């Protein structure tokens, strides 16, 4: 099952600017039309979608998409399938709840947002980096095992520790700060906040994938030994990849705790950790848009499956079964996820004869 993500364009020729300066299209003209359409729809969505769709469906999609994007970055570009992303997000969420204001006064410090926000992001990124230092010494299935084990240790620890993490109960009434006179927890502002963060993270991943750091990471994925022979410190590079991915997951975690308004050990429990993997794989690990596609499918299924099941006369609780079966089907028939299906459909369309002239392209 190939999970190698491939970036679409190659490096510009060094003399491109000399060859045709006026003819080379600027970067925003090279973005495909489909993306413009999607952007237009997303930006204007509050005009025609209701609160549930905005806040629950799309808000959650963007959040899960960001966290799965962090997994996709490590797995697709780095060749490292890590299950620690949800835990990093959970830790960021916990830090927001512990350092900032919440309903659990006996623990929360109630600091201002310009203190707790950077600290939460920094702590979560640091945690992800530390896990990276342990995980990069392993490969393949071992990485999955170790990150899964660490994620579960975090879950059990937060459940048993009452002094910092408030154990089983977690934290409630965690709200985003009121900035610029806007209550960011209202559906429309939160929607734009989540959309903005998702776009930022997506853009960052696309950009970095063609920067020396991202290119080198893909080189390490393809042939670590050769990269070492080109002068790269492979271990250090991989650890830094974990740092970058953890920063993304941390952003997702902050949004998550703001959207839920609460955080508990189960937020980063093993089912949630596995769900992130399911989302990333079903969407496709090859390109950064994959995780967001996977997240949308997952959220739509979770939101509407109980109703569909009841309509068919089945137990509404069995939606987890549907998700599991869907995931199984995906891995069996299209290991590259939805993106893989799309790519194969595009390829077969390219091979089909043009209906007008009868020639194949």
């Amino acid at each position, binding site marked *: *099952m190939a*999970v190698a993500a491939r970036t679409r364009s190659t490096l510009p020729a060094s003399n491109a600017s000399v060859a045709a300066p006026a003819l080379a299209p600027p970067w925003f003209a090279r973005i495909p039309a489909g993306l413009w359409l999607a952007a237009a729809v997303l930006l204007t969505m509050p005009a025609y979608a209701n609160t549930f769709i905005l806040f629950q469906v799309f808000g959650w999609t963007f959040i899960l998409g960001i966290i799965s994007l962090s997994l996709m970055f490590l797995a697709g570009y780095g060749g490292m*399938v890590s299950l620690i992303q949800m835990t990093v997000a959970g830790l960021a969420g916990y830090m927001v709840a512990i350092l900032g204001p919440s309903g659990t006064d006996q623990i929360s410090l109630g600091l201002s947002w310009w203190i707790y926000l950077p600290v939460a992001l920094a702590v979560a990124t640091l945690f992800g980096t530390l896990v990276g230092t*342990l995980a990069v*010494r*392993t*490969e*393949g*299935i*071992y990485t*999955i*095992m*170790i990150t*899964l*084990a*660490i994620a*579960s*240790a975090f879950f*059990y*620890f937060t459940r*048993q*520790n*009452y002094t910092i993490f408030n154990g089983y109960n977690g934290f409630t009434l965690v709200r985003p700060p009121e900035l610029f006179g806007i209550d960011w927890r209202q559906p429309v502002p939160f929607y734009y906040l989540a959309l903005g963060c998702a776009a930022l993270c997506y853009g960052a991943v696309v950009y970095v994938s063609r920067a020396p750091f991202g290119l080198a990471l893909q080189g390490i994925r393809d042939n670590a030994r050769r990269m070492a022979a080109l002068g790269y410190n492979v271990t250090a590079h991989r650890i830094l990849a974990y740092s970058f991915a953890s920063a993304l997951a941390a952003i997702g975690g902050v949004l998550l705790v703001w959207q839920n308004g609460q955080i508990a050990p189960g937020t980063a429990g*093993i089912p949630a950790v*596995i769900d992130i*993997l*399911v989302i990333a*794989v079903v969407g496709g690990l090859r390109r950064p848009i994959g995780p967001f596609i996977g997240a949308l499918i997952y959220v739509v299924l979770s939101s509407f499956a109980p109703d569909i099941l009841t309509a068919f006369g089945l*137990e509404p*609780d*069995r939606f*987890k*079964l549907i*998700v*599991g*079966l869907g*995931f*199984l089907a995906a*891995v*069996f028939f299209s*290991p590259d996820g939805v993106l893989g299906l799309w790519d194969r459909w595009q390829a077969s369309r390219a091979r089909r004869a043009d209906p007008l002239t009868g020639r194949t392209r």
Partner: protein
Amino acid sequence: MTAFVQRRPIASLLIAVLVAFLAWLILAPWPPGVTAVMGPKRVFLAAILSGVTLGALYFLVASGFTLIFGLMRNVNLAHGSLYLLGGYLGFEVADRTGSWLLAFPIVFIATALIGIVLQYVVFRRMEGEELRQTLVTIGLSIVLADLMLAIWGGRSYQILTPDFLAGPMELPLVTAVRPNGDYVYLRYPRVRIWILIAAIVLGLAMWFVINRTRIGMLIRAGVDDREMLAASGLPVQAVFVAVFAFGAGLAGIAGIVGGTFQSLSPGEDTRFLLASLVVVIVGGMGSITGAALGALIVGLTEQIGLTYAPTYSVVFTFLLMAAVLAFRPQGLMGRRL
């Protein structure tokens, strides 16, 4: 072992001292000073024995996992689901027939059959694609977990200990000395001791088969180079399927054991899968001795942590795993990855 002592004399000395100290702690009556520091000896002994017997349970589950992965490079993350399913089925059998012992062969065969189906449907079709195998087994575990939830619900099940194994037994370990000079011996649940003995016997039998019989040689050779062995005309596939079935069956009967010791409920599948992972990380992949050692260490760490520092027992297990990863990533008895 002599090679180990020769290569690392200081470490061997430290280990010997540690073992001697532990032996004294366990066997000798404690002077008042030690009791003041560590609490009653009874509690300490109970913790040690619980750790060892929990380790026996972990060994039963993890040895199947390590056999299947270490020898055949098949990753089966539905292993925990097989454990829980075995436990539930064992409960049903024991409940309906009233016989605890009968549950073992029935569950073993049932889970072994599921293992065979897994081998054919999943692992043979995706030969060499480790990641894909992993993902499929994850998907299966999600599906199985939900099915089991639908059938057995969310409550806890406990398999009753059969009468001939119920009750405590007296062990030749001294917990205290009565004022009149008589020794007080430790009383410990009989069933746990017998499970421990059974696990040891099973472990020795597995080690013997793998290392001292021709079938074991076949397995070990096939691990090193499956194609070569297949080309030699020996029934490699049959042996591998048998190994997989055996590992799956082991997980199933471990479920019965766990259901008797502790209880069965949704979430136990994840817990025992993770325990297997940690045992295998600590002990080393593909080694029965490693699984035994790892299970013992993990079980002891968990129980001693639970007894003396309940809030942080998870941290101990995690620190143990992190330490092994940092200093010996292939595990204590593993070969270089």
